[in-house]
């Protein structure tokens, strides 16, 4: 029997048990779908992170504490930024920020907010697009001015418009004290997935204020969590970082206080964490696929039992073992291959939706599709072997007598 004939036979037999075949295929469809989607998601996240790192620039060094329990005199403070600039000619920009929680009150309405107290060069590290007004400047920092930057979505929601420069908002901090701040700028609201999450009702809004003002209202707390430095060149980030640490430690008169991390290293860490997560998810998806495959083995075994007599007839008419094997394996492969196709299409669909949401090009790779499809066919072969062998080994006389 040639391949075309067994293809026809297999299709006919699947058609007679349509519902059963479809239900069996669902397992494989879900398995392939998850594999494709997870691989797409992995590369999506990777390219998203790459894009974000590119926006910031790949030449950033972050100075952090070596241990959590730094003594007060070893805290990083705003003045240390000058020390760094003086001691390191390569520094292009330098910034620090602190992050606190609070409530914004507009008339009778309250919105939870995360308050970023930032230094003047902060916007060189985290790209911020303005819709109205200006960003926080050097003068705001020096004079501890009570100004605030909110985003478009917040403005729209609480003022019904975005040009709200000069409007006064009340900020209530966790200690209970309140201050009135003036809006001097409105940022553009992003349109990617993460911004839409951030727009959620229960999600706090992000606002920016001068770091000095924030330190003032929150207990005058001087400690900076870190200092960010950007340099001109991309090379030798590690060496420059180590030098900055040296400069600071010399200034404090004590060694072993700080570490320098750079964005290249961070990107590597992100990527490897992402890789581990993808790998774990992939293992789960493959397990789904195997469970789906066991479903196929199961249904083919049922099919063999139902067709014992048919197999007997075919053998009496001259079917060889390989003909029977081919017939059942073809059935199995048709099921897994078409499930694979459906799963891939669904995966591409899901991949496109995700890509659309986080504004990156669709990333179900050609490689993934080919891999998933050939994988499905191979699974069909593997799962078909046992039932097919069982069918082919049936004794013709007993099969013909089987009721």
């Amino acid at each position, binding site marked *: *029997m*040639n391949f075309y*004939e067994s293809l026809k036979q297999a299709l*006919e037999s699947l058609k*007679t048990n349509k519902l059963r075949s479809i239900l069996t295929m669902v397992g494989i469809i879900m398995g392939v779908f998850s594999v494709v989607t997870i691989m797409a998601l992995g590369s999506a996240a990777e390219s998203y992170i790459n894009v974000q790192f590119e926006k910031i620039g790949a030449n950033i060094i972050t100075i952090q504490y070596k241990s959590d329990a730094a003594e007060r005199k070893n805290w990083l403070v705003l003045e240390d930024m000058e020390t760094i600039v003086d001691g390191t000619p390569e520094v292009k920009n330098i910034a620090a920020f602190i992050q606190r929680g609070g409530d914004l009150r507009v008339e009778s309405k309250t919105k939870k907010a995360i308050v970023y107290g930032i230094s003047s060069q902060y916007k060189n590290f985290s790209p911020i697009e303005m819709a109205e007004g200006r960003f926080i400047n050097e003068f705001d920092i020096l004079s501890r001015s009570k100004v605030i930057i909110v985003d478009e979505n917040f403005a729209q929601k609480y003022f019904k418009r975005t040009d709200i420069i000069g409007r006064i908002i009340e900020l209530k901090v966790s200690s209970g004290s309140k201050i009135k701040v003036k809006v001097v700028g409105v940022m553009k609201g992003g349109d990617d997935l993460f911004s839409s999450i951030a727009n959620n009702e229960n999600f706090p809004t992000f606002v920016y204020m001068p770091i000095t003002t924030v330190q003032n209202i929150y207990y005058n707390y001087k400690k900076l969590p870190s200092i960010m430095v950007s340099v001109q060149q991309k090379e030798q980030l590690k060496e420059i970082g180590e030098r900055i640490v040296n400069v600071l430690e010399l200034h404090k008169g004590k060694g072993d206080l700080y570490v320098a991390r750079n964005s290249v290293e961070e990107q590597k860490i992100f990527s490897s964490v992402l890789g581990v997560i993808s790998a774990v998810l992939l293992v789960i998806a493959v397990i789904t696929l195997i469970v789906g495959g066991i479903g196929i083995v199961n249904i083919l075994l049922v099919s063999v039992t139902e067709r014992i*007599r*048919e197999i*007997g*007839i*075919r*053998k*009496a*008419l*001259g*079917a*060889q*073992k*390989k*003909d029977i094997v081919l017939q059942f394996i073809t059935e199995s492969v048709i099921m897994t291959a078409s499930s694979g196709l459906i799963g891939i299409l669904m995966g591409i669909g899901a991949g496109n939706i995700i890509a659309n949401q986080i504004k990156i090009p669709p990333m179900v790779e050609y490689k993934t599709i080919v891999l998933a499809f050939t994988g499905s066919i191979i699974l069909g072969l593997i799962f078909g072997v046992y039932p097919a062998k069982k069918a082919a080994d049936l004794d*013709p*006389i007993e099969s*013909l007598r089987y009721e």
Partner: protein
Amino acid sequence: MEQIISMSGLGKVYINGRLQVEALKNLTLSIGRGELLSIMGPSGSGKSTLMNIIGCLDRLTTGSYMLDDVDISGMNDNELARIRNRKIGFVFQSFNLLPKKTALQNVELPMIYAGTGKSHRRKKAVDALERVGLSDRMAHRPNELSGGQKQRVAIARALVNNPSIVLADEPTGNLDSVSGEEVMEVFQGLNKEGVTILVVTHEREIAEHTNRIISFRDGYLIKDETVDNPLDAIAEKKKRLEQSKAVIMEAGEND
């Protein structure tokens, strides 16, 4: 006469655990080309066992079996399947048609395994169905056919690869007497065209349609007789139809 089948000292033992059944004992038998013969014997006497061995579905235990001058005993499963496909045509008591396929598709089946091309296959299947008088039932599925028609589809299927011998194990066992005569009519017609046919039956009357009757008991061949004037199936069928008409009329008069 040219020998199609020649067996000598053939024995078949079934072993089920500690139980041994000697189904055929020291059988020597020859069948010539163009014969129409029948096998009779009580239940369990070894008739089906012999058919299965002749048909290469089963292997002999002792002795020798030559089919078309070829020794079958040393062949492997694939070679036996090939022999079944090319040289044997099976007709079963329970028809054994594939229920989801049409008469035509059922008849095409042996040619699929023979590797016959599609158009040639179709033509030969149509021819075979014409030979058994079913050219108007080709697109019907088995459940749309009478028992007699089903058995004729099965005969067409058995014929289609031009086998050396057609083996029919109680082909009339599931049929009424008129349909049984129809089957024998087809066999007699085919035999006139030169087809060798071997029929197993319990009924003496069916056996008397053939030219030679072989009887078995307890695995032994006990009688090998020639029938001088075999019954003619066409005449017998007519007789039966008249009989059944008479029965119906009688029943009508009694009302």
